[in-house]
Structures are given as C-alpha cells and as structure tokens.
C-alpha cells in the first residue's frame, strides 16, 4: 500500500494537506498533532507587504459551514522569512507557501523571495474573495499573466489556487496548465453573505465573504470532476472535506491530493485521521497505490 504522491519536485508522504488560512503557519496545530503525519502544510497566504485585514466581524456560522472575510491579514514576506519559515522547517513536513499579489512586481518579489531552502512549493492564491476587487482567477488574461510571472521567477513547484466563482472553472485550470502550473488547487470559497436580523445589517464587517465547510462539498466535488476531464496536471482538492469518506470522493473525482480546511477548527486532528483513513481504505481494498483510484469515478480517460 502506497499513498505517496509526487507533484513535479514536491514529494508528499501522504495526500493530505492543510487548506491555506485554516492552519496558520503550523505552530498552533503542532502542539496538538504531529505534523509528520500529514503530507504538507499550506500556509496562511502571505503578501509582499503586511496587510491589516478586513473590518470585524469577520466570520459568521451558517448551516454546515461558515462565511469568512479575513481579507488576507498577514505580516508580509520579510516577516515570513524572518519569523515563520524557521519554525515551519522544524516540523518535518513539506511546506507549501500560499502567496497573493496585486501587481506584477508583487508576483516577482514573492517568487524570488521564496526561492529559499525550506520552501517546497508555492500555492499561488488567485482567488481570495475578500479583497474588494475582482478576483484574478475570474479573468483569464490576468490569471495567465500571474501564473506566467511566478513560473518564470520561481524555482519551486507551482500550484495555482482557483476560484469557484466562475461559470467554468475547468477553463481556468486549463489556462494555469498552459502557463506552466505544476498543479491546480480548487476550490477557494464561494461568494456569500448573511444578514444579522437583530442589527438589520450584513453580519460581516466587509458585507460579503467566502463560504466554506461541508455545505459546499457537493459543488466543489463536481468542479474537481470537471477539471479532471480538462487538464493533465494534478489536482489538489478542497471544499468542505470533513472526513475520509469525503476525501475519497474527491480522489475518485480526480484529486491527487486533498486539502482539509474549515474542519480543522472543529476537529483538530482531522488531517491526521483522514490520512490514516485513506491508508486503511487502500489496505482493506487491497489497492497498491493511491494512483489507481485517482479519477476512477470517470469513464476511462484516454
């Protein structure tokens, strides 16, 4: 039984990673679980310069999920290199750094700045819904420009995180593939809102946010299924994964790697449980490698 996965230069010991923004930079969860037991940590997104983030309230619970509007609060690239990367290196797991930029210079600075030891891959977050501007991954030209730049300046494995807030996400996956992405990551959160009827106002300080959690799982699953049909590069799937059954559904739809997000808030050991559960499933069904079931729900792919 083998659940190892390789994406370009990135070798994962198992196919479970942490969705960006739900795991910080690993430190807090390292006190609860052994990060050796998961495939990789995908960090909270960093930008070149520090960002204060969006006004409070920033989260609201919804049926089987939550809406967040954090707004990429982070301390910037320099702080990451100086204060976060050293502790991440100690966790004996792979480190995928999530990055977001607002102009060409940002993408170049982040790519060059992160060409350092200890960074195993980049996840280019083109799909944050909380920036009060159009999402890059809603525009093919901007998407290709960003992917092209990071590909050009980064020596690391490149994963591109796509937005579900488009009519055909597979087309965007295709753009990323054409511009040199090693993998695509989907989905980011869905545009959403809630209204506080007591205050008669939007529940979130920034009015709209992104919906995550089990509520979005079936929609995300369908998107992974669609993207698998369209591209040849591996898919890192996220969207409401709560247990091993969900993870296996995404793998059978076409994901090579699954990413647990909001569930980390609820079940602090979920990543480890999902990783163990996948191995148990493979063992029990006498499946030698994970690859045998990736996309197996499709009619045979030529």
């Amino acid at each position, binding site marked *: 039984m083998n659940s190892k996965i390789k994406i370009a230069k990135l070798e994962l010991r198992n196919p479970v990673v942490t969705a960006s923004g*739900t795991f910080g930079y690993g430190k807090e969860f390292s006190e609860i679980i052994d990060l050796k037991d998961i495939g990789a940590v995908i960090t909270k997104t960093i930008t070149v310069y520090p960002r204060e983030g969006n006004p409070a309230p920033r989260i609201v619970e919804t049926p089987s999920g939550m809406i967040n509007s954090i707004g990429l609060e982070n301390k910037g690239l320099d702080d990451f290199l100086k204060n976060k990367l050293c502790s991440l290196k100690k966790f004996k797991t792979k480190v995928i750094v999530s990055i977001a930029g607002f102009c060409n210079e940002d993408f170049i600075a982040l790519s060059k700045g992160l060409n350092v030891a200890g960074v195993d891959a980049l996840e280019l977050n083109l799909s944050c819904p909380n920036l009060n501007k159009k999402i890059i991954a809603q525009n093919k030209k901007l998407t290709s420009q960003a992917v092209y730049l990071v590909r050009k300046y980064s020596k690391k494995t490149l994963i591109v995180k796509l937005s579900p807030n488009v009519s055909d996400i597979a087309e965007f996956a295709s753009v990323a593939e054409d511009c040199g992405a090693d993998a695509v990551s989907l989905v980011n959160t869905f545009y959403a809102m809630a209204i506080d009827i007591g205050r008669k106002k939007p529940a979130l300080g920034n009015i709209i946010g992104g919906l995550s959690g089990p509520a979005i799982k079936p929609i995300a699953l369908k998107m992974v299924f669609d993207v698998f049909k369209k591209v040849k590069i591996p898919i890192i799937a996220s969207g409401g994964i709560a247990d091993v059954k969900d993870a296996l559904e995404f793998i059978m739809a076409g994901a090579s790697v699954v990413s647990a997000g909001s569930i980390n808030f609820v079940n602090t050991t979920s990543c480890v449980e999902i990783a163990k559960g996948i191995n148990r499933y493979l063992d029990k069904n006498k499946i030698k490698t994970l690859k045998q079931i990736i996309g197996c729900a499709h009619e045979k792919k030529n």
Partner: protein
Amino acid sequence: MPEMKIINKKYRVLENKKIASNRFMMKLAVCKSFLKICKPGQFIHIKVSDSLDPFLRRPISIHKVNASSIDIIYDVKGKGTTILSSKKKNSFLDIVGPLGNGFNLNNNKNKIPKILIAGGMGAAPLVFLAQRFKKPKGLVLIGARTKKEVVCKHEFKKIGCSVKIATDDGTEGIKGSVVELFKRVITSVENKAKVEIFACGPEVMLKSLKNILKANRLDAQVSLENFMGCGIGVCLGCAVKTESGYKRVCKDGPVFKLSEVF
C-alpha cells in the same frame, strides 16, 4: 515562562442544570494538567455535536474551578447552546482548552483594592477571578436588566467579595446601569490610582465604562466576547480593532486593557 501547549480532550459532564429561565450551569470533570494551567479569563472551546451542523465549536469562559472540575454558565441562545443544554450527566464533551490569555494577576497582592464590574453574563468569568484574589477579595458591581437576571451574586459573596447591584428597572439595587453604579462608587474612593479594575460585559457597557475611566485617568482589564472560528489563533476570524491594529480575541485576548480596545 514556558509556553503551554494546547490541550484537546474529552471531558465528562458531571452536572448540567438549569439555574434560571434560559440559563444553565455545567460542571465538567477535567484533568490535573488543565486545572494546573488554567487562569481566570480563559475559555474552553466546546464541540457541542458530532454532526456537522452546527458546524463550529462554542467558546465559553471558565466560571469557576473546583478540586477536580470546572463550572461554566451559558444562556441558551441558538442551535449550539440548545444542544449543549440537552447533554446528560456522564456524557462526554470534546473540548479544546484552556485557551487565551487570562487576566494579569501580577498585581494580586494583599491590601490592593479591587473593583469588578460585571454586565449580565459577564459576571461568570469574574467569579473565577475572585477565587484567585488575595485579600481583600474586592468589591463586585453586578448589572442586569432585572432582579431575576442578576448573575452570581451569592457566589461572589461566598468567596468573600462585597456586592452591589444595579438593575435597569430598579427591582434590585440602584436603578440604572452598572457603569452609573461604578461612577458613584469611584467618586468615594480615596486613592483611585491604587485600585485594580476588572470588567466583563456587553460592548455598550464597556464603551461607556471606558469614558468614565478615561475621565478619572484609570484603566481596566476587560474580557471580550466574540464569534470564533478556530479558537487557537490561526483563522484570524475573531479580530478586534485595537490601538495597535487588529488583535485576536482568542489568542491575544480575551483579556485586553480597556484603553486599547474600542
């Protein structure tokens, strides 16, 4: 001081009883290490259900510590607390905690006068604080809408605190807000600068308290409440604006200096 690690365990419910029309007290058997590290002002993050709806954990402050258990008090407000109120004796609850930065007790010396200001359910965590006080145990000002909603009066008295009440409708104590009561109390205090002030309650109360304290050149340690995602500092969902940018209620707080927030 070595940083404490986050504990995530299942604890047994020893008691879960109704103490007022919509209010419950739950007693939880906790491990020794929990009792050793927990501090007043800290909270626990409770998984109320094994289903995925309601999705998030519920943060509830520690009300009291006993020899081998802790007490929490909660109002039944929505889905999560309704489920919590149905928990039977001897069932187990998945809990992360104790979490957050509690009250700073560096100045907890004998003879230091203390005033505790509680608005509504804000009284709950202040009982644990008073448990840890050296003598004198302090003066507690409790505010509530009406007599029936006055929280923890007898518990404060049992600990040895003196208690004054303010109710909006005047059914107990003075008629008016707890901040008005504080205003009266503080004018008769001789050495104001020496008094340590602690508060917990709704935002409107804390904001009006802030104005009074400012006029008297005083400050207070306040415990804030917020919706939370993770409870351990990773999601940045419970941010509050402070003098030095956004801070996380769950990790940087829930206790802040009142002069730094709102």
